[in-house]
């Protein structure tokens, strides 16, 4: 019962923020986020046309065969899902109660442009699409922030590095 109420509250808030950008901006202005002074920087190693690209989304995208993200933990779910880049979009689903994904349910490319990056390769804008992309559920709070920063994100970075990925596009939701 309590879990149902939580999910209903989260989905209702997501719809309110989606329909009222000013409310969302007000919430963001008065909220506290991680604050950094330094900025990591890696210059492009080669021309974009000769680069291998991977996608990362925090839109809660997963394969229908993969476990759902945890929607009951109020601090979110810091785990990730590996998504094969040649997957049919019919095999993808979104689990995320913190934004209104009704439009993304119609066309997942608006949060996770898995088909469009293949179009970029076909058109010659990039040299290659990595064989896998990665997906997170981007509502991470409390103790999970430490897990994400110090364990999960560096692990995904190592996997992309092993794949010889040059460039990464990240999409929130």
């Amino acid at each position, binding site marked *: 019962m309590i879990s149902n109420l939580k999910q209903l509250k989260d989905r209702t808030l997501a719809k309110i923020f989606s329909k009222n950008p000013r409310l969302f901006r007000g919430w963001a202005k008065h*909220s506290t986020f991680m*604050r*950094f002074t330094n900025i990591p920087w890696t210059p492009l190693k080669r021309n974009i046309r000769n680069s291998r690209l991977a996608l990362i989304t925090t839109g809660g995208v997963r394969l229908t065969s993969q476990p759902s993200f945890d929607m009951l933990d109020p601090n979110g779910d810091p785990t990730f899902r590996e998504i094969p880049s040649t997957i049919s979009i019919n095999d993808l689903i979104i689990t995320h109660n913190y*934004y209104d994904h009704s*439009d993304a349910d119609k066309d997942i490319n*608006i949060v996770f*442009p898995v088909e469009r990056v293949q179009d970029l390769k076909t058109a010659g804008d990039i040299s290659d699409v990595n064989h896998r992309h990665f997906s997170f559920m981007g509502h*991470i709070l409390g103790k999970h922030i430490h897990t994400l920063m110090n364990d999960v994100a560096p692990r995904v*970075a*190592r996997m992309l590095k092993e794949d010889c990925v040059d460039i990464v596009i990240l999409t929130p939701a």
Partner: protein
Amino acid sequence: MGLIQRAIEAAGMSTISISLSKEITRSVRPPRAVYPGFPLGHPISFPGQTVRQLSTLRLLLKYLEEMNMPGTIIELDLNKSSEQK
């Protein structure tokens, strides 16, 4: 998402992200970000608008190539652009 982007960049790959909140992006300070002006839940644009989706991605690649100042946030107003379906 900026936390993940920072880890990827620190590992030696060049990254660029979509920002849906300038406030959050200014705080987390990812290396490169583009604020397209699209509503929440629509970082790349709208369902079925494949040309517009591709245009958004090409803009990201263009800025990825051009940006040379860490922490840059490019602010655009693509939501008011004419439909390019």
